[in-house]
């Protein structure tokens, strides 16, 4: 059964009462919320996701709700509960759906240590995965969104789940978080892109989420070999340029961008080294999405 099998009315009712159990990549997320924007965004952006119907184990128990104080009448807020504890301060109610996405990222980064987790986008074509680590603002999510819209399979726009063997990456496809100018860039890049509503004035500026393609969700159990690790950087008016990056330097970049290397320690070192042994590493500068995707297509062609 998929989330789209529920009508919006049924989804709202279940979210308010017993909650739903969403299968997101290797995880089952138990979610409750009485907030209308969370319900409608889930209906729009998570419609292809399978629901876990049995009474089995949930990896994360999340609830987003408005506290029942008089404040809800003049400046309503959203609170994020993880195992009924609040790890974050409340946010304006308009930021409720982004808070779900950020909160789930936090849960995974903090509690999932069976994988080495790198802050990066991951996409696959022709059985070859590319990991795109990058600092915020480097253009990683924009490139990731555009690649997905041009037929690449999205494994994640936020985190690479690297197996301890270092050879495989596990998909965890989620809506792609676009920020500020990227939102209209992607809308113009592909008119068929399905985006959720904009949330203004968040800590990351204006945010909107792009729905993953159906193929990404249905193939979420298919892990894949990593062949390239590429550090993308958007640079206005630049030509697409790949520059070979030394592997010790790329290892340092992976460590810098890892959520749990300090927890994984030796097994994280082993996994990252094996990952790089089998991968080619590049710095990438780009400005034209169509052109850079053409080059990336050529990279995985043979």
């Amino acid at each position, binding site marked *: 059964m998929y989330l789209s099998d529920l009508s919006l009315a049924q989804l709202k009712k279940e979210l308010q009462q017993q909650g739903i159990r969403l299968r997101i990549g290797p995880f089952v997320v138990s979610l409750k919320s009485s907030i209308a924007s969370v319900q409608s965004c889930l209906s729009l952006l998570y419609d292809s996701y399978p629901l876990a119907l049995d009474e089995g184990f949930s990896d994360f128990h999340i609830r987003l709700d408005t506290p029942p104080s008089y404040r809800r009448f003049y400046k309503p807020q959203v609170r994020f509960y993880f195992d009924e504890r609040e790890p974050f301060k409340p946010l304006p109610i308009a930021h409720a759906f982004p808070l779900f996405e950020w909160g789930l990222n936090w849960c995974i980064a903090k509690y999932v240590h069976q994988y080495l987790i790198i802050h990066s986008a991951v996409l696959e074509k022709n059985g070859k995965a590319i990991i795109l680590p990058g600092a915020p603002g480097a253009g990683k999510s924009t490139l990731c969104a555009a690649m997905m819209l041009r037929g690449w399979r999205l494994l994640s726009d936020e985190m690479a789940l690297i197996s301890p063997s270092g050879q495989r990456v596990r998909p965890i496809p989620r809506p792609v978080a676009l920020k500020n100018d990227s939102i209209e860039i992607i809308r113009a890049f592909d008119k068929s892109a399905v985006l959720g509503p904009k949330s203004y004035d968040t800590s990351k500026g204006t945010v909107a989420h792009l729905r993953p393609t159906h193929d990404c969700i249905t193939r979420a159990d298919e892990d894949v070999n990593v062949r390239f690790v590429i550090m993308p950087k958007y640079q206005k008016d630049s030509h697409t340029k790949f520059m070979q990056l*030394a*592997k*010790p*330097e790329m*290892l*340092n970049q992976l*460590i810098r961008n890892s959520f749990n290397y*300090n927890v994984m*320690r*030796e097994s994280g*070192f*082993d996994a990252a*080294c094996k990952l*790089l042994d089998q991968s080619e590493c590049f710095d990438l500068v780009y400005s034209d999405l169509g052109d850079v995707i053409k080059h990336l297509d050529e990279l995985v062609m043979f």
Partner: protein
Amino acid sequence: MTSSDASIPSDSGRWYVNSALFQLKWHQWEEGYSVFHTGSGETHTLDDLSAQCLKLLESSPSNIPELSAKLAQSLSLDLDDDLHEYVDKILQQFEYLGLVEKKRVSI
């Protein structure tokens, strides 16, 4: 070696990797080495020469003249003041990173 030999640094203590407290986990690349320090959880990048210094200390404690001689022999380098100076500097960096310690000479 004696302290009267002016070409030899005065330091006669031996440097070593304290394997009772931590291990070094190595990975070799075409472009050098990465080494994971199990004690600190830090990962360090080393070029071929500094990696060889650390590996030699890992196999047996040495003072600067001894380490310079081993390095010169293993990598076919001239055993001169420049090499002593390099070894002295790299040992200071290793010590700063917690990779090596210096045994004090017991009297």
